[in-house]
């Protein structure tokens, strides 16, 4: 029982990270029908923003050395700037383009960011130790829980609550939901297209920044592709959750995290190295059973 609870907390914490990545991707898809493959690279940018831009083998902290609130704000600002820049320089010119065109453009954006990081920071992976205190374990009854996992879960819940509040209770949130549903109609009613899209990029950037902070304090390693697996699992999460549904993205993220942690814990020793193959097999199974995801977007059918 204790073992299972321990695994459950692992699953929740991993699932939270995937849910954060999935939310960022799902938001962009909802508003712009853009499957943003550059989202992972925004996460990478957030991690590299912590250190001094230099090709040295050892990392020296830059924003990472600032006091916590400033550090979080600083990393968010850098990632949001990159996200907005990708819109300004690239996606804004493709507003009338098809979804596949946008997707390929996002590949290009990601590739450019990765190579930019290579040029500035060098190709060698670097180690950084962000928040060493969080590595310590907390004892809750008989459970030993790393603080970092609790922080990850807590921060994710907080961000999701904030996002829900924003979307439901503010006029800009309502405009975003309207635009996600019917962009042409939203514009006819006065919703500013570029503003709403910029907002979506900014929020997605904040989600990427937070994901990168949490992820980097878990792994401690910087590499120019560090965000790619997060993006991949986030994307899978949005697909099995139901493309375009934010709740679906969260549910999908938690599901992927859950399955992958549980497989890690309960697969026979010899099969553990094939864990991801099992994860993807389950993903395929879910999609066969529910092709439009766990929480389909068009849940509300007009009664005409």
């Amino acid at each position: 029982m204790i073992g299972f609870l321990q695994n459950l907390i692992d699953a929740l914490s991993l699932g939270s990270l995937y849910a954060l990545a999935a939310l960022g991707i799902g938001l962009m898809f909802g508003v712009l029908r853009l499957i943003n493959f550059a989202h992972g690279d925004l996460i990478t940018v957030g991690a590299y923003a912590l250190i001094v831009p230099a090709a040295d083998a050892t990392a020296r902290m830059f924003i990472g050395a600032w006091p916590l609130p400033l550090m979080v704000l600083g990393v968010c600002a850098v990632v949001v700037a990159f996200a907005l820049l990708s819109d300004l320089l690239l996606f804004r010119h493709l507003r009338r383009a098809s979804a596949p065109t946008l997707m390929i453009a996002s590949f290009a954006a990601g590739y450019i960011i990765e190579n930019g990081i290579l040029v500035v920071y060098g190709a060698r992976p670097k180690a950084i130790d962000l928040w060493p205190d969080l590595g310590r374990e907390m004892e809750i009854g008989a459970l030993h829980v790393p603080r970092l996992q609790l922080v990850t879960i807590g921060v994710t819940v907080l961000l999701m609550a904030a996002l829900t509040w924003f979307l439901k209770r503010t006029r800009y949130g309502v405009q975003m939901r309207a635009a996600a549903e019917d962009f042409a109609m939203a514009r006819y009613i006065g919703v500013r297209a570029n503003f709403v899209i910029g907002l979506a990029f900014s929020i997605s950037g904040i989600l990427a920044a937070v994901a990168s902070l949490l992820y980097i304090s878990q792994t401690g390693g910087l590499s120019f592709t560090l965000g790619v697996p997060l993006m991949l699992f986030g994307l899978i999460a949005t697909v099995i959750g139901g493309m375009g549904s934010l709740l679906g993205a969260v549910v999908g993220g938690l599901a992927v995290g859950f399955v992958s942690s549980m497989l890690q814990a309960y697969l026979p020793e010899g099969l553990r190295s094939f864990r991801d193959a099992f994860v993807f097999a389950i993903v395929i199974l879910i999609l066969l059973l529910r092709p439009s995801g766990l929480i389909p977007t068009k849940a509300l059918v007009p009664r005409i």
Partner: protein
Amino acid sequence: MLEVEDIHVNYGRVAALRGISLRVDESELVCILGPNGAGKSTTLAAIAGGVRPYRGAIRFNHASLTGKPPETISRLGVSLVPEGRHVFATLSVEENLRIGAYQRRDRARVESDLERALELFPRLRERLSQPAGRLSGGEQQMLVICRAMMTRPRLMMIDEPSLGLAPKIVDQVYEALLQRRHQEGVTLLINEQSSERVLEFADRIYVLRSGSVRLEGRAQDLRDGVAIMSAYFGFDDHSASSSAQATLG
């Protein structure tokens, strides 16, 4: 108030509008009639900024609308209710209504406008917090008209308000439109496929066919329907039009 001058629109290689000119004066009610595919919807979409004409000019109170994005045109006081109702299905009825008013600065009057919309359509008040996708077709049509009114337009364009609605509901929709027009002097430009209702209350009528204006005139001069019928179906000589009148009653 609105002047459309010789606009041409293509969808790919297909010509949708081949030089449409029309005008709407302050507080007029003008109807555009025509069969399916005549270019009625495209004309309204071009005025509202949804499609861009490759030739021609559109002016609203002497300001050019040509090439402006839809949100800017909406803010200038031109509101389009497109065909097919387009409620935001996952937003609540109230959110649907309020989103129309977000661009306005007179917050105090927004509340009284909302109250008035709900008085006009009490059905909406009962469903304020429900997702708009759950409304019936007629209720959705009322909602999109109210939503457009919430922007406080000076010119309101409605694309086939009666499409797919029961005659009784259509009566309600028109009654509400005429009431708003009477109370606030909002100028109306309405697309319809059938001339039946339109002839009663329109000031002027344009008949479109194959992307061109085939007939324009004051509704009172066209009341017998002969000229409209002949323009609508494209009969050019008089004998054809009178035989059409005989068959169509």
